[in-house]
């Protein structure tokens, strides 16, 4: 019986003491860092939650102030080196606070709400910005973040650039039907309906969303795809990777019968660029419209 106690105890205590030691180490280094930088100026340290929020902060030229991001922040590349505090729908309060932020900028879809409240209660200002995945939402988000960071001029510039880019969209005579497939491996294919980020982007690029019968994303149904008869099939790069190659996709039931598959009109674009509605929205629409000409 005694051995169990010992085992139980040593098991728990050894796993804890190791984290204790690293925690203490971390504390030592961080406190010496603090001593160097803190008194000089109240340096703004930003924690950013949400892929397009992070992308906007970087586009505004404030990327070097970002000290931690959420798992959906994947662009620009510098972001990948920063500590991750969890997926933005499931953030860790302490993880965010451990980055010693002076401000947290979060998409208003961030959660859980308890964590958002806790952060505010502890005295770290947390600002939530629009998570709307539309062109208007993009502009609103950029304005909100720009005014938070005292970069209104730069914000207007980005918005002007987006509008400039959108002028490059070539509207075809007959708007092609585009089917968006959200994939996470074969067997988990969903199709984008109305009021989705994908449908909004397709419209911006001069296409028509192939599915008008429902809202949101629904599991793929082979028969309804055949009826939808899309001229193009659109995926995200990671989505296509999860399926293998374009040829693997073309073999799937339902898809193989569509005009898009017969003409091999499959388009894939970077996830965050296509669906993020960040500062690259205009470029994404222009690029997609070009691909829809082929």
């Amino acid at each position, binding site marked *: *019986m005694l051995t*169990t*106690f010992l085992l*139980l*105890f040593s*098991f*728990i*205590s050894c*796993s*804890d003491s190791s*984290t*204790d030691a690293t*925690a*203490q180490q*971390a*504390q030592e280094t*961080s406190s010496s860092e603090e001593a160097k930088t803190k008194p000089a100026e109240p340096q703004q340290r930003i924690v950013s939650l949400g892929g397009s929020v992070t992308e906007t902060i970087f586009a505004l030229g404030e990327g070097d102030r970002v000290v*931690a991001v959420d*798992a959906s922040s994947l662009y620009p590349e510098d972001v990948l080196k920063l*500590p*991750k*505090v*969890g*997926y933005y*729908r*499931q953030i*860790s*309060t*302490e*993880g*965010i*606070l*451990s*980055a*010693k932020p002076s401000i947290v900028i979060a998409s208003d*879809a961030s*959660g*859980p*709400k*308890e*964590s958002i*409240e*806790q952060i505010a*209660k*502890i*005295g*770290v200002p947390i600002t939530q910005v629009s998570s709307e995945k539309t062109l208007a939402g993009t502009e609103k988000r950029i304005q909100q973040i720009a005014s938070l960071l005292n970069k209104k001029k730069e914000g207007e510039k980005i918005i002007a650039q987006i509008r400039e880019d959108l002028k490059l969209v070539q509207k075809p005579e007959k708007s092609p039907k585009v089917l968006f497939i*959200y994939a996470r491996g074969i067997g988990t294919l*969903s199709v984008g309906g109305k009021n989705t980020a994908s449908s909004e982007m397709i419209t911006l690029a001069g296409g028509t969303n192939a599915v008008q019968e429902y809202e*949101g*994303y629904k*599991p793929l149904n082979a028969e309804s795809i055949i009826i939808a008869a899309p001229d193009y099939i659109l995926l995200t790069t990671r989505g296509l990777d999860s399926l293998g190659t374009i040829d693997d996709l073309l073999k799937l039931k339902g898809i193989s019968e569509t005009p898009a598959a017969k003409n091999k009109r499959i388009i894939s674009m970077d996830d965050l660029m296509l669906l993020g509605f960040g500062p690259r929205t205009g470029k994404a629409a222009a690029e997609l419209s070009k691909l829809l000409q082929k």
Partner: protein
Amino acid sequence: MRTFVFLCALLVALTFLSFSNGAVSISVTECMYILLSTIGFDVSYPINNIHQGVLLEIRIPRTILAIMVGAGLSISGALMQGLFRNPLADPGLVGISSGAALGAALVIVLGWSIPFLEYWTLPIAAFIGAVISTICVMRLSQMGGKTVVTNMLLAGIAINAIAGAGTGLMVYLAEEDQLRDLTFWTLGSFGGAKWIEVQLAFLVIVIPSFIGLFLSRSLNIMLLGEAQAHMLGVSLEKIKKTIVVLVCIIVGSSVSMTGMIGFVGLVVPHLCRMLVGADNRKVIPASILLGGSLLLASDLLSRTLIMPAEFPIGIVTSIVGGPFFLMLLSMNQKNQVW
């Protein structure tokens, strides 16, 4: 007796580890000073405001809640195993968790909210789900005015299936983000623990658990079989109903506050039986202590393993507890010291 002293010491040690560890590093000394200054002492230590906030608003409530939920789930497991006279019984058997999951899924996917109590909609719905499914199981297990335990088991299986179908429908209807929320909910977390929840938990977890302690003698007698227990003057109907009601309140409220945390209710009573023998008068108090410790240790791991992010606690309880339990079982088979 030595066992109980040890279990208490373990719980206290883990509590302090939990206070002083996490993504934000706070030394044990600073913890002590913050605690002292909170209860009114004048300390000359330079207390960091953020550290104080983290300790008082995040770590202490989550530590206390983890202990209470762990204790509650474990005593519920012990009570269910006593009721069914089967060491494989756990609170999920009477449909509590699946009912709660359906309630939560409805709220997450359909976006319901209760007027004036918007904030509490999810926990309330989960709790109502747990209560409804338990009532159904209780009703279905009545036969000639008596509660038949085998019927309860079968009714539980059926109700679990029906609630599971409802949850499946919600999963089908859910959008990407809702699906994520739902998945995270089913894996449990103490991340959002607040003082108000700690106070609530005292009412709905600690008090029912305390009542549960008094049932241990009757459970011992029930081990002999229902007929014998009846002969010995145990009021079977009353005991059965009390157990189900207590377990429903404890587990229903635990699940609704922290999401689903598997494994604890099943395994802790087993571990306790290995430590103190089969006597329910010892198993039940030991379950409270060990359950609290186990869940607290799991929570500690969940928030330190992948700092600064957090791991869902349901994964930790299973991945750490599962192999550990298997190891104990195989040791148990090799030498019969137990």
